[in-house]
């Protein structure tokens, strides 16, 4: 399989009083293991793009091929199952469940599938250890710093062993130092696990570290820059 994700002339039209084209004829192909940064001004369609790739939203026209399968027009339920099995999400506000411990939070995507197997559990605990959060397994999110919470969210996104990790401004709420720590970790995990990452960011410094930078303006892909060979 050459591409893990393939967008074929994807358009998204919103009707909010007046019709607004959030995306117009977007073509995008992501290879396995690729780290793609999506940049662009506010309201340019970055988040809409991420929602469509993340199967949270449907394109008005065009096709979305994920892991070799056309997912453009699947039912609500089928999309939920694919999200659960193929995609990991990282949000700007971490969005950990406050009443669950760190370990329970990271195991949640697996629990959605059913009972957690011992190897899965060991793998997730290994990831927690790798990012230095193993001692916090029984702590609650409110007891952690923002940077730590975002690292937990990152492990949660990887828990279900997804094909694609989508990160929406993952460093947006963090100070520079914590931001870099989280970004470096994402890059490291991207290389170590071979998962493809798509990260929406405002920050050009992070974007420059990606394999490819996709710039969106007014719902169209403006430029695509491969920053590395």
């Amino acid at each position, binding site marked *: 399989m050459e591409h893990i994700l393939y967008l074929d002339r994807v358009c998204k039209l919103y009707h909010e009083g007046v019709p607004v084209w959030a995306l117009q004829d977007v073509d995008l192909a992501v290879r396995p293991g690729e780290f793609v940064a999506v940049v662009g001004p506010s309201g340019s369609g970055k*988040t809409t793009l991420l*929602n469509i790739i*993340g199967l*949270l*939203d449907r394109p008005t026209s065009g096709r979305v091929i994920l892991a070799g399968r056309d997912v453009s027009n699947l039912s*609500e*339920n089928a999309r*939920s*199952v*694919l*999200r*659960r*099995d193929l*995609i990991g*999400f990282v*949000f*700007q*506000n971490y*969005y950990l*469940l*406050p*009443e*669950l411990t760190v370990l*329970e939070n990271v195991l*949640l*995507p697996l*629990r*959605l599938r*059913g*009972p957690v197997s011992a190897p899965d559990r060991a793998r997730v605990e290994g990831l927690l250890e790798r990012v230095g959060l193993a001692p916090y397994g029984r702590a609650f999110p409110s007891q952690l710093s923002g940077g730590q919470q975002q690292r937990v969210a990152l492990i*949660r996104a990887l828990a*279900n062993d997804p094909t694609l990790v989508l990160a*929406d401004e993952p460093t947006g709420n963090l100070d520079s130092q914590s931001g870099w720590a989280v970004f470096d970790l994402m890059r490291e995990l991207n290389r170590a696990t071979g998962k493809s990452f798509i990260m929406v960011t405002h920050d050009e410094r992070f974007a420059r570290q990606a394999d490819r930078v996709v710039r969106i303006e007014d719902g169209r892909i403006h430029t695509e820059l491969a920053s590395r060979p």
Partner: protein
Amino acid sequence: MVQFAWMLALRQLRSAPRQSALAASVVAVSVALVVFLNALIGGLQRRLLETTTGGIPHVVLEPAPREPTPVWVLRPSSDPLYVGTRSTRELRTRSIENWRSWVRWLEAVDEDIAVVIPTVEGPGVLTRETRTEPIRVVGADPDRFDRAFGLQQRLVAGRYLGLAGGEAVLGYRLADRLGLRLRDRFRVTGPAGTSTLLVAGIVRTGFSRLDDGVVFVPLRQAQSMLGLGTAVTTLSVRLRRPFEADRLANRIALVAPFEARSWMRENRQLLAGLQAQSQSSFVIQFFVTLAAGFGIVSILITNVLARVREIGILRAMGATRSQILEVFALQGTFLALTGGLVGAGVGVGLALLFYQARASAAQPGIEVFPVDLNARLVLGSVVLSVVVGTLASLVPARQAAAVDPIRVIRST
């Protein structure tokens, strides 16, 4: 699936302890009220029923009155027909001669029949020295009669079981009035002459008809006093389920040559009263349960509204709508179960306390009506609360399942 839903449901409830306790309390109060009210009304009805039917047969069978056959009903036949003057005389005591075979038939004909008592009942006049009192003579086999009415247990003095010819048991009020004591003798004049009887026992049944003016004697004694030979006047039937009396009376009247009187037909007013009471208590319980359901709905809706973001994130992570629905429905079920169990306990406790308070304040000799607490009532109330709780939680649960993850994520 269930593992996830249960874990999250219970964690969310635990993280908002006050809200959860409030919801469970709403259920507990309503279940306690339902249990208490039912126990009270059930006890009252049971007592009323006992008072009404304790001293009477549930169904009384008497020979059907039969008029001489009218001429126009007689079949045409070739034989000459002689029609005399129609007799207008009435039988003084209609009786059943072959009662032994009818008792066997009745005891086999319906499983609700607990015991059939061949009974002789008729009028008499009791004479003690110079005083006389009109009475009813009731003659029956003491063993059978006792199985139905428990006379032996209610004796003030003497015995009823093993009553021999020439012996009698009297109601205590009758005995008091005439100054009769154990082993005293008195005379009873019936349609067939006068007998002298010995007081073998004095009974206090609590039914004024029996305590005031009945003389209980063995079957044979009554038969001879009333001049019946070996016949009996009625077959008294006691049932396992008193409310089957109408059905049974109708059934017997259809297939056997008896006039069947059910206690229910003769106590229509009481039954209508009991029914009205049951209905009004049902209405109260219905609204109490409804209120508890609304309580759960409103508290869980608050819960859903407070967790819209979390729900959105769960949906983004791949939780299906039915999984989200499950989380909130389980919360409703759990709150209702907890509240239901606590409420049932409180209801039982209240009913018992109420009974004790009344019993200790009651005047001696006046029985306090009991509370009717049974497993069916208690378990039924808990099950009802769980069903209502689960159904009520479906409203907020559906609301939760409908949360659109995009709107949640976009709004931040």
